[in-house]
């Protein structure tokens, strides 16, 4: 086993192990076997991904972005290669992708465990298909995070689309079809823009004699950097860098999601089954932020500088508007979905200001949200499994009948709220610190307004806790069994991580800040 898996090919194993599990799932004899294969595969993938820790733990980030010593576990082969035209299968990890890979494998594992009560779902059919698509989705997500070739990135990006479409559309709630097709069309529209950018960037790089889709080359090759960011370079009649930046941004913004491209998210979340909501909130939204950090900023820093104000403003709208929307919801899951919109606003704001504090805050916020948001969705799922509705105003006093669940729920929602000592706080405060210090004249006012978002967040979450968990015990909920061992297991892992990241944030920052610093260094060169 150990000789089969080496540092050179471990990423391939991690990315394609779920696919092997997919085949096994389709061949498994009965429902229980399918579940065991599904959970086993995600667990093995998670274990394998733990082997990636050492170089990042030892702070081996290299001296510059994309150099050989800063990319670990790299693997590259020619794939579609005709003459000068060359598409590579190129994967590798740096401080940007590594935390995301861990987040993905962990969230997938927990979401697979959350799928254990498949038989109790409203749509209880086709468990083979469910787990097969689930695992295919994991391959797509992991592949997107580790791909260093733009074409490969795009392929993996799109591979996620179909499984998600079917997972929402087949196993979802009452309006699943609408939600699924809306998700599909929005995301596809975004990816078409990415595709145009991909073509334009390839040909522009070819103009200076570099025929490549290599994302690292795009960012670090001086000739490409020069032509991509020059004022005089044109795409149709626009400035090339800005046009690419905007197209890529819209493509990624759909996933983040950024106002006004966010409307698919509440629908998709409300209709998706609980584990899929966990994946959606925990990983898929992060792909947008990751795409911005991996592609937009290192490659088009000049355009990023030009667009900073607009992006920060959009981030601000996300924070405030998402929080206000969340406050107005009466559907439990929809509220959590809008809270995601609000939280991802901090990510966008942190990225927009282009400082290392901002980037660190944004990355941390993504990871924190990747822990707290799936936890919240799982909490909603637990109560939904028992009550079969999600009307916030019908609940009350749940803590009394389900003390363990109530305690963990409070922990999860406080982590989402951003209570100091829990993970949400660090991300938000880091972004606000960065915004306050950012070298833009508008940054301070934006930071001040964004800080008020924290108050709104506290408002809707405390109000939510009050309505659902506190108050008098209602008769119809008094007989509910408390959280099962399986549910406690999932919740306590996420709860523990939320506390760990909140109390000792430096252990998380340590895994990524070297690469983020290197990206920021690119801006000044």
């Amino acid at each position, binding site marked *: 086993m150990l000789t089969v898996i080496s540092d050179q090919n471990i990423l391939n194993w991690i990315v394609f192990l779920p696919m092997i599990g997919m085949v096994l799932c389709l061949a498994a004899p009965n429902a229980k076997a399918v579940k065991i294969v599904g959970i086993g595969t995600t667990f093995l993938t998670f274990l394998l991904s733990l082997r990636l820790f050492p170089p990042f733990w030892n702070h081996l980030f290299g001296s510059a972005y994309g150099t050989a010593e800063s990319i670990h576990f790299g693997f590259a082969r*020619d*794939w*579609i*290669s*005709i*003459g000068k035209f060359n*598409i590579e299968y190129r994967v590798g990890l740096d401080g940007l992708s590594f935390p995301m890979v861990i987040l993905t494998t962990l969230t997938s594992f927990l979401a697979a465990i959350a799928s254990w009560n498949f038989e109790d779902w409203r749509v209880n*059919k*086709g468990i083979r*298909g469910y787990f097969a698509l689930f695992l295919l989705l994991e391959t797509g997500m992991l592949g997107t995070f580790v791909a260093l070739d733009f074409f490969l990135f*795009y*392929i993996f990006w*799109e*591979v996620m*689309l*179909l499984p998600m*479409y*079917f997972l929402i*559309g*087949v196993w979802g709630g009452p309006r*699943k*079809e609408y939600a*699924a*097709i809306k998700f*599909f*069309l929005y995301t*596809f*529209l975004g990816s*078409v823009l990415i*595709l*145009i950018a991909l*073509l*334009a960037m*390839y*040909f522009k790089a070819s103009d200076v004699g570099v025929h490549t889709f290599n994302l690292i080359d795009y960012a670090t090759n001086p000739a490409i950097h020069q032509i991509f960011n020059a004022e005089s370079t044109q795409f*149709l009649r626009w400035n090339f860098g800005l046009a690419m930046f905007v197209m890529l941004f819209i493509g990624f913004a759909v996933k983040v999601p950024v106002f006004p491209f966010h409307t698919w998210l509440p629908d998709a979340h409300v209709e998706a089954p609980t584990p899929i909501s966990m994946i959606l909130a925990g990983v898929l939204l992060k792909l947008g932020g990751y795409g911005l950090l991996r592609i937009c900023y290192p490659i088009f820093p000049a355009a990023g500088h030009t667009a900073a104000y607009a992006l920060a403003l959009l981030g601000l709208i996300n924070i405030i508007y998402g929080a206000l929307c969340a406050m107005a919801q009466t559907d439990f899951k929809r509220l959590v979905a809008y809270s995601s919109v609000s939280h991802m606003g901090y990510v966008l704001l942190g990225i927009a200001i282009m400082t290392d504090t901002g980037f660190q805050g944004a990355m941390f916020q993504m990871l924190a949200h990747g822990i707290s948001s799936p936890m919240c969705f799982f909490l909603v799922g637990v109560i939904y499994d028992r009550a079969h509705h999600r009307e916030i105003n019908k609940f009350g006093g749940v803590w009394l009948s389900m003390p363990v669940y109530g305690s963990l729920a409070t922990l999860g929602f406080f982590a989402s709220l951003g209570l100091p000592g829990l993970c949400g706080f660090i991300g938000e405060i880091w972004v606000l610190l960065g915004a306050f210090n950012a070298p833009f004249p508008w940054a301070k006012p934006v930071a001040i307004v964004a800080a008020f978002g924290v108050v709104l967040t506290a408002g809707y979450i405390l109000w939510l806790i009050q309505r659902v968990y506190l108050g008098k015990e209602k008769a119809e909920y008094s007989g509910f069994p408390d959280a099962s061992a399986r549910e406690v297991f999932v919740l306590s892992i996420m709860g523990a991580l939320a506390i760990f990241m909140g109390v000792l944030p430096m252990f998380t920052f340590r895994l990524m800040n070297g690469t983020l610093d290197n990206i920021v260094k690119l801006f000044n060169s």
Partner: protein
Amino acid sequence: MLLAIANSFWMPDLDAVVAIGPLWGLAGTIVAIVLAALVLGRSAAVSSVITIIGATLTAWICFTHAPRVAQSAWAGLAPAGGSPMLLVDNFAILFILLICLFLACVTGLWMIGASTNARESAAHLRNGPEFFVLLVGSAFGMALMVSTTNLLMIILAIEMASLPSYAIVGFQKRNRIAAEASLKYVLFGAVTSALMAYGISLLYGFYGTLDVNEIGRLVSTELAATDTPAAAKALISVALFGLMAGIGFKISAVPFHFWCPDVFEGASIEVTTWLSVASKAAGLGLLLRIIAAVLQPLAETFDNPLSTTVAMFAAVTCTVGNLAAFPQTSVKRLLAYSSIAHAGYMLMAGAIIWQAKPGSDVANPAFAALIVYIIVYLFMNLGAFGCTALVYWATGSEKIEAFRGLGRRSPLIAAAMTVCLFSLVGLPPFGGFIAKFYLLMALFKSNLVWLVAVALLNSIFSLYFYSRIAYAMYFADDGKPAFSVPAFGRALVIAAAIVILLTGIPIAGGLIGRANQFASHLYPIAARTTFAEPQAAAAKDPIPLAARSAP
């Protein structure tokens, strides 16, 4: 006098007769079917087996011919010193190979259908030999279409391909829809043939030659001359338009597409499958030859206005096809519109086909992209129509409702259909994406960014209606019982789906590489190396149009 007549007869040498071997293969298959029917009696099974053997043999001949005519050369029939009547170059061989491959697949589909559906197969089996003679006849016509640049041969080839097609569309005599479809097809075909004959007669009248390459050169000289009157230019446009109408009809380019949905709906599903791919592939092959011949000399003198025209036609065809597919309830009709849309995508390559310099080693990306597209398209349509056929044979309906719950009732067929549908959309990781991506790259390289945008917008439109079928298969379930399909049919569609998946990721590089290698050997399309250089054409120095059109 007699001697002069005798001299004007032209006897081909053996070399040339061997060179057009693939055509002999198909013609021989027709004869074999007829003879077998006379000797062994009228048996559909025998005819279908002969068809498959003939198609395979012809494909084998194509393979053996490929090395002989490699490297930008052609062989074929040409009167001494005249322009070639039939030419077999790599381009023709590729298309004939695809047509033969597809012929075998469609025959396989027919055999599956004959074994499943008792009611229809009675008529099927009784008239089997006729059906296969017609089917192979249309294949022969299509093979002719891709192996000529002679205007007279073009007319003959198109008619050879069309007339049997009309007959096989209306082959189910008692089916009124089929009869109506056939009549529509005939009427439309007749009108466009007339237009084409008119255009060709004008061209011949102007230039005194039937060779498209020669005409292309002369047209460009004529248009470049400053003293050419506007009326003459208009007449040339009319003539070219007439020529294009005949071919536009074959590939169902807008506005010559009206027959397509009705015919595809009315014809039996094997015939629809056949026409949706083979007829279009042949039409495209011919069109590309003509576009390359006419546009390439023009492009040297003009800022390619005709290229823009082709691009517009492609954009409109694509958009109309996709938009008209939206409200369809019949899967066959929906796929008919989808095939119009795909003709549009492929026609986009026509807009840039002239760009490779004749005689240079530079691979023409448009040709390479088109080859990839046609190969992938063949399998996508085979799979999609194959699944529709299997569902039709099992449920008796080809409406979208018939697909409801297919994900449960026949999971493998539903999975194969899903792969084909999303590949038709152009989503990764399926072959349709690779094909579209490579085509868009070629367009982008030629700065036709607007056409790229049109193609991508169309992909988004098309996602909606293709996913309606996926929706019916997986999201809507009316609880009808599961059904089983013939094992051979299942194998066929699954094989198609597997090829689509393979071309999507693992062998995408190989496919594109081969296509490129091939495309680089293609130019100039009509370079002749096995025959003597042509004598100066009779109309080398044509009378200026102005003088001719003067009263």
